[in-house]
């Protein structure tokens, strides 16, 4: 018995060491800095201004997807934003698109997926999430037009108006310094994960220098402080959860019989994809932990199609988030929302599994 527990512990610790040495320095540390910069430096009100009431739908959808990509790195800001877009802004459809993209295309999750599972998975994850977000938004607002109109009547004043003033005073070159800043940050990550040999250390050193100089020259002390404290906040919040998740994934790998997953999800069938999706819906893992979990499933013989289906479904909905969404959408729309996600992710798993072998 003791031997058994000991071997489980060893498996967990081995998984931890492997992840920490392979991914933390090159991928996660830059990813935390990027997420921190996004929260602290992007002009949030300016982005939200474009999601006001009178924005035509063809603009509202891409913009909400973009907002989901850029803004909501922290899960607790998603719901007020969602409720705000729905009731005071562009309406239910774009609000749902936002609600979908925000967790699904979380910048850190995508970068981590790329680093651990390969960039093919990461890119598929972004592209499919964006497509689903828009499709689900359009379908639901088309089915429930009546509810939409009624809710619009209840909407009082537009939020966006008052926020115009605070952002108009921003200097125009703000955008360029932000661009430079993010390009450098992303380059550090790319050089760190993709370049080999001595060029990597040299490249990283130069890029960090550029980053530091541009932070000092182009940004105020308060902005740099806000960036660093947001970065630290993310690290503090996510890192322990991630280590715990990796440890548990390692233990599970040792615990589960070798062919357990392969039996149910080893081939690219409808049922395999559906099981993977349902597992993703009903299990809740904190942000980023789905990635080491997926790596474990892959190691245990899960096929690539179901794996992608799982990765697409897991961050978007869990039982907890379904309950919250129900409060704002009602039972019927929530059921359709969840149903559509299950159908879409299952189908995309099937397609992905057929293309990639």
């Amino acid at each position, binding site marked *: 018995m003791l031997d058994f527990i000991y071997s489980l512990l060893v498996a967990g610790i081995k998984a931890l060491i492997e992840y920490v040495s392979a991914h933390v320095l090159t991928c996660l540390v830059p990813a935390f800095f990027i997420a921190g910069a996004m929260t602290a430096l992007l002009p949030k*009100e300016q982005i939200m201004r474009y999601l006001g009431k009178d924005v035509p739908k063809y603009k509202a959808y891409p913009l909400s997807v973009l907002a989901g990509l850029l803004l909501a790195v*922290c*899960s607790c800001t998603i719901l007020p934003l969602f409720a705000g877009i729905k009731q005071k802004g562009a309406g239910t459809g774009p609000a749902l698109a936002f609600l979908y993209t925000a967790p699904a295309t979380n910048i850190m999750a995508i970068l981590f997926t790329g680093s651990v599972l390969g960039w093919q998975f990461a890119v598929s994850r972004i592209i499919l999430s964006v497509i689903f977000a828009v499709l689900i938004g359009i379908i639901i607002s088309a089915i429930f037009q009546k509810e939409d109109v009624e809710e619009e009547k209840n909407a009082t004043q537009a939020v966006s108006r008052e926020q115009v003033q605070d952002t108009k005073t921003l200097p125009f070159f703000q955008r360029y310094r932000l661009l430079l800043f993010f390009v450098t940050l992303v380059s550090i990550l790319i050089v760190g994960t993709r370049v080999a040999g001595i060029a990597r250390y040299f490249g990283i050193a130069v890029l960090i220098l550029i980053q530091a100089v541009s932070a000092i020259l182009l940004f105020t002390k308060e902005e740099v402080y806000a960036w660093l404290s947001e970065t630290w906040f993310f690290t503090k919040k996510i890192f322990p959860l991630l280590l715990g998740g990796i440890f548990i994934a390692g233990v599970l790998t040792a615990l589960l019989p070798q062919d357990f997953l392969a039996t149910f999800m080893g081939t690219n069938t409808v049922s395999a994809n559906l099981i993977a999706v349902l597992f993703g819906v009903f299990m809740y893992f904190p942000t980023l932990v789905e990635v080491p979990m997926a790596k474990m499933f892959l190691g245990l013989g899960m096929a690539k199609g179901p794996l992608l289906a799982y990765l697409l479904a897991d961050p978007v909905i869990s039982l907890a988030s379904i309950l919250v969404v129900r409060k704002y959408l009602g039972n019927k729309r929530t059921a359709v929302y969840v149903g559509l996600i299950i159908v879409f992710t299952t189908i995309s798993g099937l397609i992905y599994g057929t293309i990639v072998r």
Partner: protein
Amino acid sequence: MKIEVFGPGCQKCNKLGSMVDDVIKELNLAAEVVKVSDINTMVNRGVMFTPALFIDGVKKCEGKVPSYAEIKKMLGGE
């Protein structure tokens, strides 16, 4: 003075709440602090990013945790 702290109960919102309490204690203010966690109320008051801080019904800050000094200034201390 009426102070409202908006936040659904995440770490940052709690931090803002406790900092506000500290400032009030330090400045010895007679202020009523209300914590608002209902999302519909937030939307109706025009709050999109949490945490947010309202003083006497006016939005002073949104979407970030201000520093201790900033809160002090908002509350009229130097």
